[in-house]
């Protein structure tokens, strides 16, 4: 199964739409609730990152019998130093983003924690691609 969701940069009202839809699908597939939580928390962090830091993006979600693969691809400023961005507490978030309850530099580390596999590919002034993978059983 493949699902695609557009993500609009700057639009905080829509952030979480993709995560919410994916959560419904995974519930229907009877995936363990603890694993669903890990998946949708990671996806939601990724969505919020596109909304907060990029111009627009696309989430492509592929589900098969044993795993889910999520590719979050955006056009945006890119991440100059991915290793640094992965550090807990590193953030370039604007005051507007902080006002929404985000921008503590906790998202990328939390995505890492909640996924079985994570990879970031980024090109400055072009965009960022984050790949997440989770298995349905441990």
């Amino acid at each position, binding site marked *: 199964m493949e699902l695609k969701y557009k993500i609009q940069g700057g639009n905080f009202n829509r952030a*979480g739409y993709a995560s919410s839809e994916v959560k419904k699908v995974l519930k229907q597939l009877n995936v363990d609730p603890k694993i669903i*939580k890990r998946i949708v928390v990671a996806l939601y962090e990724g969505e919020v990152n596109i909304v907060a830091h990029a111009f627009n993006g696309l989430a492509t979600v592929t589900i098969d019998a044993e795993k889910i693969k999520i590719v979050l691809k955006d056009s945006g400023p890119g991440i100059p130093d991915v290793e640094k961005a992965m550090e807990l507490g590193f953030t370039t978030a604007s005051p507007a983003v902080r006002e929404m309850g985000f921008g503590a530099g906790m998202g990328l580390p939390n995505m890492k924690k909640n996924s079985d596999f994570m990879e970031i590919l980024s090109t400055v002034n072009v965009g960022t691609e984050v790949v997440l993978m989770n298995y349905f059983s441990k």
Partner: protein
Amino acid sequence: MKSLYFCLENYTDIIVGIMEMKTIVSEINGTVRVGLDLLQNNVDFAFASDLMSDVLTVEKEDILLITGLANLQTIRTAEMADIRYIIFARGKNIDGQIVQLASENNMVIITTPYSVFRVSGILYQLGIQPVF
């Protein structure tokens, strides 16, 4: 459930408590905005934060969230984190979008004139446990 509540009052050295949402609402002078039919549900752990990044790191599910941040992302965050009980402190304005998204997700939304500090203090004293 009422008997457990009285039991907690009489033995103040008991630190572990389970509380009906109904009791919590009256203790914090709260108004139920969503989820009137879910007030018999019990809560045993709570977390207070205005930082959604932080809420998203809480692994425990079915906790009560006490927050001063009342926007759509608070509800979205709770949805992903499997949090179904939210107290909005200091009489925050809860708009129709928030109410709708919260009821779609079977949440209980309570507003209170009390501060996050005061709500936390009351619930802590009643035996609700901290996540961290």
